[in-house]
């Protein structure tokens, strides 16, 4: 299956042409490099094209927000990354940033202002939910699809975004079977706090396996989430339970793009 083509404007190019795009789409390292999550970045870019959003990406000028460094205790590296990125925002006169990764979102929105950033930061679930409410993205009536939604910690507990992703799923015709632990009670996928990048400490079970078990309790055939780390961890969890063939893990952006046949 060949994917439909789509346009991704590069900030340096269009800024040189004298255009200041309304949004900076912050792709994040996972969007740029993670094998699985690149698909999500593509899905989101296609939706932006479909909705005719005036956006651009930083391309090779984008650099890690510093989130994993900060959470692993390397405040020096975090601040160096932050100052460098903020300088770039100022250079391109960025006002609004769109992010998909909740970790980038949290850092750009809550932590960068301490170091001088004044940008408004918008998570794509809230952005898409708005576009649906305005009718820019059509909604789909009931189609008997059920799913369960896993709340990423840095979207949910950290920033209280619980309803937007659920509304999108409902708008796409899904009914949601909630896990016992959902919203502010949700269990971490096991990747936060830089855990994703290190060996885990000895325990009786992997955190991702426990979370995958909780998802399977809802008898779902697909788990939807909104974070690159959650996707990887939940997929690993399903693998540990030999369920990776039966159950899929998808991102909200992929669901929307699929339903729009993008």
């Amino acid at each position, binding site marked *: 299956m060949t994917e439909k083509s789509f346009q*991704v404007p*590069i900030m340096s190019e269009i800024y040189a042409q004298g255009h200041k795009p309304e949004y900076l789409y912050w*792709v994040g*390292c996972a*969007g*740029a*490099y993670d094998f699985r999550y*690149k698909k999500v*970045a*593509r899905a989101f*870019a296609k939706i932006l094209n479909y909705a005719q959003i005036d956006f651009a*990406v930083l*391309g*090779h000028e*984008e*650099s*890690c927000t*510093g989130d*994993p*460094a*900060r*959470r*692993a*205790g*390397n*405040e*020096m*590296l975090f*601040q160096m*990354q932050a100052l460098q990125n903020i300088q770039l925002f100022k250079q391109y006169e960025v006002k609004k940033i769109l992010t998909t990764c909740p970790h980038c979102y*949290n850092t750009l929105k*809550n*932590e960068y202002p301490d*170091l001088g950033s004044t940008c408004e930061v918008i998570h794509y679930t809230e952005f898409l939910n708005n576009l649906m409410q305005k009718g820019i993205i059509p909604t789909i009536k009931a189609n008997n699809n059920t799913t369960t939604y896993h709340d990423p*910690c840095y979207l949910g*507990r*950290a*920033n209280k975004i619980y309803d937007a992703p659920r509304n999108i799923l409902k708008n796409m015709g899904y009914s949601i079977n909630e896990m016992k632990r959902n919203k*502010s*009670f*949700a*269990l*971490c996928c*096991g*990747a*936060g*706090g*830089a855990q994703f*990048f*290190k*060996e*885990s*400490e*000895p*325990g*009786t*079970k992997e*955190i991702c396996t*426990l*979370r995958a078990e909780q998802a399977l309790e809802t008898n779902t055939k697909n788990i939807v989430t909104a974070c690159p780390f959650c996707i990887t961890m939940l997929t690993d969890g399903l693998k540990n339970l030999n369920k990776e063939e039966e159950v899929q893990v998808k991102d909200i952006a992929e669901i929307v793009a699929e339903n729009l046949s993008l």
Partner: protein
Amino acid sequence: MSISQVIFIITLIITVGVFLFSIYRLAQFFKLTKKYPIGNWGKRISLVLKIALGQTKIFRFPFAGFLHAIVFWGFLVIIFGSIEMVIDGVFGIHKSLKVLGVFYDIIMGFGDIFAFLIAIAILIFIARRISHKVKRFDGQEMTPKAHKDAFLALSLIFLLMFSLLGMNSMEAILNPENSYPVSNLIAHILPICPCKAEGLYTFFWWTHIELIFIFANILPYSKHFHIFMSIPNVFLSRIEPLGKLNTMESITKELQLMMNPETAYEPQENTEPVRFGIKDCEDVTWKTYMDSLTCTQCGRCTSVCPAAQTGRKLSPRKLMMDLRARMNEKAPYLIKNKNYSDGKSYLNDYISLEELWACTLCNACAQECPVNIYHPQIIIDLRRYLVLEEGKAQGGLQAIFANIENNGAPWQYSPTERLNWINE
């Protein structure tokens, strides 16, 4: 002045004296801690109304939450009666607050009902501790002493309510026109002649007030210190989103110096070397230490912790209990000699690296804490000490730091490949 007044005043002075000493001792410990700025006073009042008075977070565990809310709201009402008893005791004026009229009757009536409800709630709490294995009450940090502490406080509260109901019931026997709904019923059931009621009233009165005095002085040395600390702790707690970590200004200054070398020649205000992060108890801010004093050891944090749930060594509750223990151990010596060292530290001797690196910073603990303790602060500060001062980070993380520094991503890809996702 009557003899009972004299005796009362002496016990009151002893109580207040001992209490002030305990508080003074703790205040000295606070002097050892670091600065922590607090602002946004308006928002904090709504925080107290919601979380403290409204008990919203405690209701996240509905059964225990409901019982606790009864105990808390009951305490707020009953405290009026306790204040009146102190006035009675000192000045020998019986029922001095009666001047408040109908309001007084309502308060005392509700106090009576609450005394009964609290007594029942406490009996359920005690029964639950004995018969049920409540998982969150156990754990490596929950020593026999911690369990005894819980039983002692529960027993004292039960006796407080028992003596209060006893006092009210005797009053009901002596004075049929009273405002005690529950004690009136008890008075009807109890076959006590009014001749004996007066003596019993005095007995219960003294028992109740002396128990209050004893309880108040046990509290600063018990986990039940939260009775005093929880409302101030909620008031002073974080109002930022849970995911936001604090920015280390010392690092920002250092970076500014690096990027702007001319400023290096400007006079520096603070020449004292700063410690990055936390190694020992005196490195924490006063707010983090306050968190540890407020901790009730309810274990709600640990019960929702993903690391703890999957058999890892981390327990957010232990972070708090250990900090308090370490401060108690070291602070008395530090006050006398600020260079004191016993060769131990909070990091390593209390909190192991295995615990420290198991945390996913998911904030479930902080979300759950009924008194708004922010556990992730300790985790991140311990990691900051290790990484920034000792250059130690768990295995794979050093590579991640190098990748971010060299490639601008935690993975080893060149920035020139950043747009490859579009065409794949």
